[in-house]
């Protein structure tokens, strides 16, 4: 017994020593770069635009992954524990996976309330904010508004400004650099916006159906009309009765386009399309949804190219 006690005490001492050693180990001195982690690739792309080579940016979720359902893998803790800044989409998009990561990472700088935690939704125009009672009978609704707000170039510009402000706050020495980067980004975005708007102008008012309600900001900016969803309610898989209703709606409204996010199954959309003579378009809600889409500009280039071709094909 005594032997066991000694053994256990020794183990405790070893554990304590390892913990103290680990805690006191010097963190490798990084260059001056700010270490930014973002919840999604879109926030990473915008941070990279304004942070330039003064930041290293990593996103947790991949662009082709459903951002509502990301596994809170321990490997993400390795990213978060050394982060100077965490940029999140907010509006409860990440509520199912990000809070435990923040709690467990042991990084005081990025805790909710700390200077290194940035909720980008505060800078963006948020649509579909519920005004009445919200219950789960409505599906997996977001009580604070639709969180898919980055798909509007105006919001992209606003978020970039907010991020530039935060980067300047955290690294005051490079504030002028971040502002320069921001101005450059805004200029390029203004030019690109003109091009995108010209490309989409012939299709203003066209009716579309989306799988999930992740398209309102894009639709509003480019004057498209979303008339229905493949999901009967947000987060609820398609049901036969709803699918029949949707087919009827599309026929009545002469709607031919079904937009589907890359992480949803195509079986129901294909069935709807074959019954309505429509076309399924797998659009990208996020940067990185396809290999060639590596920044915020390419995201709109890709989607607008897909949409204009689909509209032409279904004239």
């Amino acid at each position, binding site marked *: 017994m005594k032997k*066991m006690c000694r053994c*256990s005490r020794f*183990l*405790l001492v070893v*554990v304590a020593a390892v*913990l103290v050693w*680990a*805690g006191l180990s010097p963190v490798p001195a990084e260059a001056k770069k700010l270490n930014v982690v973002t919840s999604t690739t879109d926030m990473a792309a915008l941070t990279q635009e304004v942070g330039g080579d003064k930041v290293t940016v990593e996103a947790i979720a*991949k662009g082709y*992954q*459903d951002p509502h359902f990301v*596994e*809170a*893998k*321990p*490997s993400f*803790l*390795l990213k978060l524990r050394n982060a100077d800044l965490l940029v999140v989409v907010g509006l409860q998009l990440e*509520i*199912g*996976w990000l809070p*435990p990561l*923040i*709690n*467990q*990472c*042991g*990084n*005081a700088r990025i*805790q*909710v*309330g*700390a*200077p290194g*935690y940035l*909720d980008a*939704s*505060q*800078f963006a125009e*948020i649509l579909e904010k*519920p005004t*009445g*009672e919200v219950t789960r009978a409505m*599906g997996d609704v977001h*009580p*604070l508004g639709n969180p898919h707000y980055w798909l509007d170039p105006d919001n992209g510009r*606003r978020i970039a*400004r*907010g991020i*530039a*402000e*935060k980067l*300047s*706050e955290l690294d005051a020495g490079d*504030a002028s650099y971040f*502002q320069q980067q921001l101005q450059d980004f805004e200029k390029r975005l203004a030019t690109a916006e003109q091009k995108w708007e010209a490309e989409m102008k012939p299709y203003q008012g066209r009716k579309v159906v989306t799988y999930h309600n992740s398209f309102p900001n894009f639709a509003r900016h480019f004057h498209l009309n979303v008339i229905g969803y493949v999901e009967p309610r947000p*987060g*609820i*898989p398609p049901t036969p009765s709803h699918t029949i209703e949707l087919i009827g709606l599309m026929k009545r409204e002469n709607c031919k386009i079904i937009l589907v996010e890359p992480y949803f*199954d195509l079986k129901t959309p294909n069935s709807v399309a074959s019954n309505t003579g429509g076309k399924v378009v797998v659009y990208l809600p996020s940067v990185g949804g396809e290999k060639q889409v590596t920044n915020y500009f390419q995201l709109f280039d890709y989607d607008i190219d897909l949409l204009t071709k689909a509209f032409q094909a279904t004239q």
Partner: protein
Amino acid sequence: MKNLIVGAAVLVLFAGQLAAQQSNNQAQADSTDTAALQQKIRDLEDRLIALEGQVRMLKSAQAPSAPAPGAEASAETPAQAPAPAPTPVTSVTSAGGQLPVYGGASAAAKALNPDISVIGDFIGAAGGNPSLPLATLQPFPSLQMHESEVGLQAIIDPYARGDFFISFGEEGVNLEEGFITFTALPGNFVAKVGKMRSAFGKVNTLHNHVLPWIDRPLVTTNLVGDEDGIDDAGVSVEHILPAPKGLFLDLTGQVFRGDSGDVFRASKRSDVSTVDHLRAYKDITESTNLDIGFSYARGHSADKVGSLIPLSSDFITNLYGVDATLRWKPLRRSIYHSFVARSEFIWSQRQQFPSEQRAFGFYTSAEYQLGRRWFLGGRYDRSDRAQFANLTDEGGSVLLTYWPSEFSQIRGQYRFTKYAENIDAHELLMQVIFSLGAHGAHPF
């Protein structure tokens, strides 16, 4: 005359050109004015949106009373953004710790309340399973509101958060967990103080509603205190250890009072129990990962159900565990297909009268997600009994789970148990789990 005509023509042309130029200039000026006005409208729109954002953040912020470390300094940094700047609210409130509030207009009034959730766990059972005097596995009644778990969770202040899980059974109330987590400690340490499920293995850390089965494996029942497991008041310190790139190494050390159901018992203050857990995790590919853990627990032996001889308080129980979990979830179709295989091996070394008992047990299980709502699983169990290590129980289960939505699930389990007494039990278990309110996500 000819010269006069030419001169007049030149004059007219010049005048025309001048008028055209003036008109162009006017048009250009108008166009510049319009662009400026448009820009002004955009700027005003941006300012309005920024103000809306501030109001939203203030409404949903947790409003911590003390500023976060370094907040003052960062708030003083001059804003250098060209107008219109997004003007975020100051550091402390800009964090936007958004509570999942419901009810629209009354949201602000609820903003300071903790997240409140209730999870109901209803179990039905059919088939035969005798209640054997020396067995630790207690059969479920025919119909039972097994547990109603109330969760209260909130950020306490910029340095900590609090979590309470109160479990209402049909016959009583139990504080399953209630602890404060210090999230802003120096040196990347995370500490918890309160009553908590210990970090021994995998199953012991899980609440009933996140188990992939209706029951707990035989090895948990026989060696680690069944449903309550090692769940005690104490202190926990966790730290991510330095490791080669891509490898996650995490060490947890815990000290508890020493009272954990029928595993440990403290008869005096010095009878504390300890639990240590080393976790190694690696992403093999983007879709596949491996999670391995080593656990050790030590405490003073508790009386077991059916024990006739009181234990001496000097008797010690040591538990050793190894757990392994392999997960596969293709990211592009993560909501439709996944696979999890897990196994846990536990050794118990229990001092008791008249002789020390060395017991061993394990389970191995697998679960495959057939579609968005359907999961199919199986489990094999084998375990000695802690107090009678020569008695070994064995069993197996097949499970089918249906998720109508993220917030409810219906599960069926066929369970076969072969008791050491040479008695077989065939049971059909049914479970309905339903969740109300905002229940915080559990760690991976």
